[in-house]
């Protein structure tokens, strides 16, 4: 169970606030009869105003007045009732226990089993290996979690375990084959095992990404690389020029694409 002083404070504050009103309850103001009498009296006042201003005729006034009296008579029910007093201490304790136990139980049910490494310093950041272990354990229980498989693949690339990362990306791909980011990461991992060359499956993956989102800057960049590897320099130039066209002037990836474009243009000149 997760318990922190903030949660305890929140429970205590809630309970004290409610206990205060058990000891000093807000006074009940009105009964139904008071309200109905006042409302029907107001109706009668409005009726008298209407007839004095000539908006209705006398016969209408009399009929309406009879209706008001009849309505009120049917509504009055003398609902005086005895007020039974309570023991505020017992109720306060019960509320405190109810709020405390139930809120912490529900919260512990809702909290994810693996606590993320939030950036507030309360939990120590996990090392890459620990993260991979945690993810692998998590995925045993949750094999359908697409994001977790993708993260595992990324983490494995980070530790240099490309073969394992390809397996993880494949699992993620089977769950969601239309995620652009995954397609690019997966293709890059395969290419890393092919001396950085995009052919075969890695090329198919990039083509799929391009068909899904032909305006994505990253996809255009990778498509340019695929074209360049195939010797299709015009194709590469087209993709990268389009990417440069779509990106803002201060885009962090602009230099990379400009360099690549410059290199291909030089090759073309040669």
């Amino acid at each position: 169970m997760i318990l922190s002083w903030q949660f305890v404070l929140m429970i205590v504050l809630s309970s004290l606030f409610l206990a205060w009103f058990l000891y000093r309850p807000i006074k009940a103001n009105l009964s139904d009869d008071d309200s109905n009498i006042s409302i029907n009296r107001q109706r009668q006042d409005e009726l008298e105003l209407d007839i004095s201003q000539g908006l209705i005729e006398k016969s209408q006034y009399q009929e309406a007045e009879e209706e008001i009296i009849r309505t009120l008579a049917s509504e009055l029910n003398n609902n005086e009732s005895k007020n039974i007093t309570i023991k505020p201490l017992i109720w306060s304790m019960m509320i405190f226990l109810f709020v405390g136990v139930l809120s912490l139980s529900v919260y512990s049910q809702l909290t994810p089993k693996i606590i993320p490494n939030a950036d507030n310093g309360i939990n120590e950041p996990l090392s890459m290996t620990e993260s991979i272990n945690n993810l692998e354990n998590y995925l045993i229980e949750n094999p359908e979690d697409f994001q977790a498989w993708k993260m595992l693949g990324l983490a494995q690339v980070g530790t240099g375990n490309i073969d394992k990362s390809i397996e993880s990306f494949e699992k993620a791909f089977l769950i969601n084959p239309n995620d652009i980011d995954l397609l690019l990461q997966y293709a890059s991992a395969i290419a890393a095992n092919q001396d950085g060359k995009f052919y075969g499956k890695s090329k198919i993956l990039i083509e799929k990404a391009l068909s899904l989102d032909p305006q994505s800057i990253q996809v255009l960049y990778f498509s340019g690389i695929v074209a360049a590897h195939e010797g299709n320099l015009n194709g590469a130039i087209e993709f990268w020029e389009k990417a440069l066209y779509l990106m803002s002037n201060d885009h962090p990836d602009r230099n990379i694409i400009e360099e690549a474009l410059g290199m291909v243009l030089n090759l073309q000149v040669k």
Partner: protein
Amino acid sequence: MLIEVGHFALVLALIISVLLIVVPSIGLYQNKTSLAQLARPLVWAQGFWVALAFFVLMSAFLSNDFSVKYVADNSNTQLPLLFKASAVWGSHEGSLLLWVFVLSLWTVAVSIFSKRIPSDLINQTLVVLGAISFGFLLFLLFTSNPFERLMMPPIEGRELNPLLQDFGLAVHPPMLYMGYVGLAIPFAFVLSALIRGQLDSTWIRWTRPWALVSWSFLTVGITLGSWWAYYELGWGGWWFWDPVENASFMPWLVATALIHSLSVSEKRGAFKQWTVLLAIGGFSLSLLGTFLVRSGVLTSVHAFATDPTRGLFILIFLFVVIGGSLILYTWRSSLLQQSNPFSLLSRETGLLINNILLVTAMLSVLLGTLYPLILDTLNLGKISVGAPYFNAVFVPIMILGVIALAVFPYVRWKKDSLSRVFNLLKFEWICVVLLTLLSWVFIADNIFVLVAVGLFIWVVNHVLVLFIKRLRSKAKLSMSFIGMIVAHLGIAVFVLGATVTTQLGIEKDIKMNIGETQTIAGHDFVFNGVSPHSKENYSGFIGDITVFKNTKKVAQLNPEKRYYQTGMPMTEASIDPSITRDLYVALGEGLGGGAWSVRIYYKPLVRWIWLGGLMIAIGALFAAIDRRYFLRIKS
């Protein structure tokens, strides 16, 4: 830790909602006043924790806390501050949190502004509202938690849907939710009256101002949505009969019937059973709308959820609420006092006609919205029900409604004579016919426009006559009367604006070369070309079009084509607005050689649509602050 505090605050709000259902109920049924009176403090405590959770999520967006999955999925560091704040309700989880937050705001408002309401009624009402909160908090926490953490926070977040990166997102959903969720208040009043078996003058009296205020918000919300769609989607349309639009329009139609029915019940003690059903129907349709949007059964810019668990949860909740309410109604309906009698020609009859028309219109929209879904579910094929169906069915019903609106405010309550009404109306009819003929000669010969002009003149005329009659009789002008006048005028303004812009609007989809001129409705649109353009959250192109009328420059329009981080292209229309017409230009695709495809619209009186909507909403607010709702009740 702040995120965990926000999450825990929601859990506390859920537990307090359980207390809100249980403790005051024990107090009410065992005559333990201290426990019954605990309803208000419980509401305040619950409201506080929900508000805390809401603002914690907002602070996560503002501080780019991408360790929160919802923030990472819907925001990034490049997003402008206003869009970061409004991105809180830009997707499913956050918009549901907004739902719960708005409900707690309404509940707190009821608990505060209730000094004139009998304690038992208000406590029971708060219990019902607590039960609704419980259902939604349960849904939020167990299927749509906005505080879910990511195991490895990304350095940069994804992107908020580019369609939603607009001022409209900051105002349309909160206003719409205020109306949508506000319908829970009349529902709660009705249900508590049914539970207590106390179906008297009091619940009718105190239901009406709340119904008016929530209806007013719903009107503003729908109006803002229409305005947003008009300028953001780049099609120049103001209403698309999109199923999600319909989902907010159906509760509006029923709530319109409800506020009119409540006025009869309040003034004449008639239609009480019908009023009860309308209050239940209004909120049930609001829940149905939530189901349609959240379950993923609809595909629309509004529909974010695709998780079937969520849909199932709301469907069960919907059945519990509607089923429970109707069972309670059947059980208690015998306690409802018999309606006071009224003759065939009376204002009660007029309001009954109004109610029948509004409910028929709602049913026609409901059929058009659900029919394709039902066919699809039963594997009977896919069909699309669009504007032709709705225009053919809905518009004639509404024309009858506007005619009723122009006639029945003249008719007296309880009974009236045909000759008196005819005498009052004959000069109006002469005036309407003459002015419509003049319009035919000088303005347009389009039959739809002439009908709209005729109705507009009729309603304006009747409003003026009523106003002058009241002034002549030296009767005090009540806020309720002023509200009715303003709202009815708003309907007339809306009808004229909608008809004229639909019938007389001009649209051209053309290729334009640099320096080329196109003439539309006497305006010359000169295309000066397109240049690259970028901002912090997008890059793209901006067009330059100068508009001249009789060689005098009247507008400089700069439509945009934007590409956001995801690469999604967006059309940003440029509009020259005025009360008589809008000039609207949207940029299409580049066609090479400096030429672009351009859409140009001329929209006469289009602003009247939203002006009418705002007038209707203001009218309702006037009616809600009528002095009779400030009645001092002495114990």
